């Protein structure tokens, strides 16, 4: 069959197919069109066969290229995965994130140890030795820190005079700063895991040093109520981001039976789930830090909320979606 006859016979089908593609590629129209295009998969197979015929019959490169573009556009539409955004977000937080976390519990425990053990150790050491804090922070930073949590000031917290208005500003700052740190902790894992390792250690040591120093100065009464509310979510999330980074490092250092690239791909799939869940925890922590931690509630209540937070985090991470843990 010559090219002209072939084109004349098939072009009505191509025109029809192209019209469907145009409608499907238009994000506003596609919702209405997807249910009505029941013949689309059939037409796509027809186009694939026409494209293969055009190639094997050695038709002109122009025609082959035209059909190839049509097939490629159709491939994108046919193999696009569809999902309901809101439902998938809920399902993600209720099941996929905690399940993935438990599947990699060894790495999560390692990351948590790398973060919390230096933090506790440094806290105790700084509490004992007044000069040790200067090994990590310079004198200016320490002075600023002391002025922020000085009990002599009326309003404890990181900002001086805080109103509802500045709370929103602090929320924006906490999201930008903390989620950014979480993302960098994850990305650093691509450097053979070293980036995540360093960020976990440095953050753990700094937090421990600050807590130890302020407690030693008897500023604890302003410091601990402030951090107790958001601490459970924020600290856990940073450790989880570190675990995600360590997963990348593990794929590169110990890929096992797979190639390094295949191991990296597989671990990155799971790691990004951990990072996504941790980001949600960090945003939640930012809400509490901005609108509750600096608020006027009595210390006893703030401590209770903090303890409750740790219990909730533990229950959530160990129990959520547990019924499906054996599923792949």
């Amino acid at each position, binding site marked *: 069959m010559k090219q*002209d*006859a072939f084109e004349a016979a098939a072009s009505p089908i191509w025109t029809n197919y192209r019209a469907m593609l145009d409608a499907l590629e238009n994000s506003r129209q596609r919702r209405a069109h997807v249910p009505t295009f029941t013949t689309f998969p059939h037409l796509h197979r027809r186009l694939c066969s026409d494209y293969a015929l055009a190639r094997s019959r050695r038709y*002109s490169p122009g025609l082959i*290229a*035209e059909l*190839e573009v049509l097939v490629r556009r159709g491939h994108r539409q046919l193999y696009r995965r569809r999902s309901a955004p809101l439902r998938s977000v809920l399902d993600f937080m209720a099941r996929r994130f905690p399940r993935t976390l438990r599947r990699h519990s060894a790495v999560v425990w390692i990351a948590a140890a790398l973060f919390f053990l230096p933090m506790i150790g440094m806290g105790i050491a700084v509490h004992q030795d007044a000069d040790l804090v200067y090994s990590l922070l310079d004198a200016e930073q320490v002075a600023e820190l002391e002025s922020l949590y000085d009990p002599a000031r009326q309003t404890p917290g990181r900002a001086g005079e805080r109103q509802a*208005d500045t709370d929103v500003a602090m929320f*924006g700052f906490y999201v930008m700063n903390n989620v950014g740190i979480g993302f960098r902790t994850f*990305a650093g894992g691509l450097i053979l895991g070293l980036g995540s390792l360093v960020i976990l250690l440095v953050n753990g040591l700094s937090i421990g040093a600050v807590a130890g120093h302020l407690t030693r100065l008897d500023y604890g009464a302003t410091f601990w109520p402030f951090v107790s509310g958001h601490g459970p979510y924020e600290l856990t999330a940073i450790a989880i981001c570190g675990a995600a980074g360590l997963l*990348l490092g593990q794929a590169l250092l110990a890929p096992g039976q797979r190639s390094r690239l295949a191991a990296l791909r597989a671990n990155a799939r799971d790691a990004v789930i951990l990072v996504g869940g941790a980001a949600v925890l960090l945003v939640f922590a930012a809400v509490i830090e901005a609108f509750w931690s600096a608020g006027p509630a009595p210390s006893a209540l703030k401590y209770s909320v903090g303890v409750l937070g740790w219990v909730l985090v533990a229950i959530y991470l160990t129990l959520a979606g547990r019924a499906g843990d054996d599923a792949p």
Partner: protein
Amino acid sequence: MPLPIDTVRLHETPEGVDLALRVAGPAPRAIAYLLDVVVRLALLLVVLPLAAFSGFGTGLILLALFGLEWLYPVVFEVRSGATPGKRIMGLMVVHDDGTPVRVASSLIRNLLRTVDFLPILYGVGLVSMLVDRDFRRLGDLAAGTLVVYADAPPAKPTISRVAPQPPPAGLPFEAQQAILAFAERGHAVSDARRIELAEILAGGVGRQGEAAVAQVNAWAAWLARGAPDGRG
């Protein structure tokens, strides 16, 4: 079989046909990135007047900064396959099987951008792209994504309607394709170049100059439409 020196990557679909993915190199991607920087700055300028609302406005600006830094590429890639900069450059992000990029892959490749950016100005990413056959930076390697040229606009050239003449018998496939490609795209080059190309194709039968061009076009017409009396 040795791999051709080309940027086309073939992916076989479940329907059994080869899809051609034309991967994009560092230069157009760098330009797309710079265009995205401009777009981001423009978006930032739009939200800056919020600063008038003191603390509340500051909070929103900081949230916008976070969104522009981390979420801007993810949102655009998942929605339409390309950020505005990539769209202008005619690029798009796809999985390595040619399907549209999804949230997880887009997040991986864009969060790992931090490492590709090291030590300065995408040093690591550039080395990775130059080493890899498919111009993938580290984020692309981990996510299994490719940056490819989006579809060319479907402007199908036509073969001019001249009197067909059968070409010499036993013409190899490549030569047939070259003749057809010449007929479809020859008008896009200068007269001198067209004649030069036609003489390569028709030199075997002793045609020179414009006669060679006419000869090749006649062969192309025969290949595409067959003999005038319907045999062919």
